[in-house]
């Protein structure tokens, strides 16, 4: 019943899920960095940065991810000639474009999660930090963000799980991850339900432990107030 699964080697079943994991990890790191910067902008004292952060979040999180990912391929790559350092290697080029799109999209959600964490830190702490002469970036780095991060591990886990599943959109620009292999199998095997179940199971295997681990971590690290 499952013997067709081993007929595929470009990508193989494990290879395809490995690409999914790579997409998730690179996009998670990228969007954590970019999202933190955006959150910092949104709480900064400079009106221009606040405006940019607000505009970015409100525009990007309201565009469907498919549109963003397809734009990286049809817009950035085809029209503007962005090659992401790999003009002659389509696999690498489209992988990097997909990561770029996922980072741009997910960062908006990471930013909002972190901003909500910043709001949990009592204002008095930031005021006290200002009073002893710390600069804005020092207040953020030394006092506010460490506490903010600890309180938003739960929401960030949600974003990470959503990101894991969102990587399937990369199949629309031909990144050889799980959803692309699923399309190939459905095309060949005429076993839609079974194939769908296999891939759904694969994603549960990826996301369930992530969710459990981060849930445990968020309890352990929660700021006791």
């Amino acid at each position: 019943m499952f013997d067709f699964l081993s007929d595929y080697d470009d990508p193989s079943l494990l290879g395809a899920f490995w690409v999914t994991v790579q997409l998730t990890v690179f996009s998670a790191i990228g969007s954590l960095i970019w999202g933190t910067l955006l959150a910092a902008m949104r709480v900064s004292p400079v009106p221009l940065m606040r405006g940019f952060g607000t505009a970015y979040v409100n525009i990007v999180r309201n565009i469907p991810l498919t549109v963003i990912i397809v734009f990286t391929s049809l817009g950035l790559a085809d029209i503007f000639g962005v090659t992401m350092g790999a003009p002659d290697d389509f696999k690498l080029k489209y992988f990097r474009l997909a990561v770029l799109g996922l980072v741009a999209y997910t960062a908006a959600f990471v930013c909002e999660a972190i901003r909500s964490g910043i709001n949990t830190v009592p204002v008095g702490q930031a005021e006290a930090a200002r009073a002893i002469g710390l600069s804005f970036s020092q207040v953020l780095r030394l006092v506010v963000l460490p506490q903010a991060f600890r309180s938003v591990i739960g929401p960030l886990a949600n974003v990470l799980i959503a990101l894991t599943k969102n990587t399937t959109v990369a199949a629309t620009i031909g990144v050889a991850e799980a959803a692309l292999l699923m399309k190939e199998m459905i095309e060949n095997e005429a076993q839609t339900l079974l194939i769908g179940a296999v891939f759904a199971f694969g994603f549960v295997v990826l996301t369930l432990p992530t969710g459990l681990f981060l849930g445990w971590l968020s309890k352990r690290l929660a700021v006791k107030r």
Partner: protein
Amino acid sequence: MKLRKVSAAAATALVLALTATACGGDDGGDSNGSGSGGGDKIKIGIKYDQPGLGLKEPDGSFSGFDVDVATYVAKELGYEPNQIEWVETKSADRENALSRGDVKMIAATYSITDERKQKVDFAGPYLLAHQDLLVKKDSDITKATDLNDKKLCSVTGSTSAQNVKNDFAPKAQLSERGGYSECLSALQSGAVDALTTDDSILAGYAAQDQYKGQFKLAGLKLSNENYGIGVKKGDSATLDKINKALEKMVSDGSWDKAVKENFGPANYKNEPAPKIGQIVQ
């Protein structure tokens, strides 16, 4: 007190909404039932997005070779064109649509393969297509071995894309995209060198008004695709009737006419009409 009023109103609204949806569901079920039971309409599955084969025009009409074949077959089965209800069957839905009985038959670039034959029965084949390349007018690609250092484009997960990766040109750069139109824009801008899939589909695209004269078929016969009409497994009465209709379509010349009309302007040399049951491997 105020809160209670609001929640009562909300509950009423919710109940109304639920009954409304329930009614909607019932209606849908009823019309489906009479549609297939009464026999005054026939549902045929086609593709909506493939120029030259099965295309839904902006005005809601349908055109293409698959559509012409299905219309002819339906006529032989006793249904006038206005009794046909076209249903979109994407590649992944085709087997399920037949086994559930959503459609009576499917003519949607449906290649006859052994895996699919386990799930559905095929009438025909009614067209022998080959995987080919669509290239710019001035391209120098003439044989399959030219492909290995080229940039190709095809649709994500399609048989054609898999053939490139596994057989013809494992070293070629393959960009897999959501649809053929996305590949065409890349081909136009020079981001890829060739678009590859069945020649019948390519001919349909090249014959579209906005692309006329820009592209040509390379004429490589990279694979054999035997298009058949899918029917529900075990429905041998319909199968026989469809096969007879297809034979008649070839013998009275309607088949040739349909090929010329749909694939004409793209340097497409079609194969002669295949015999029923003759599958070219």
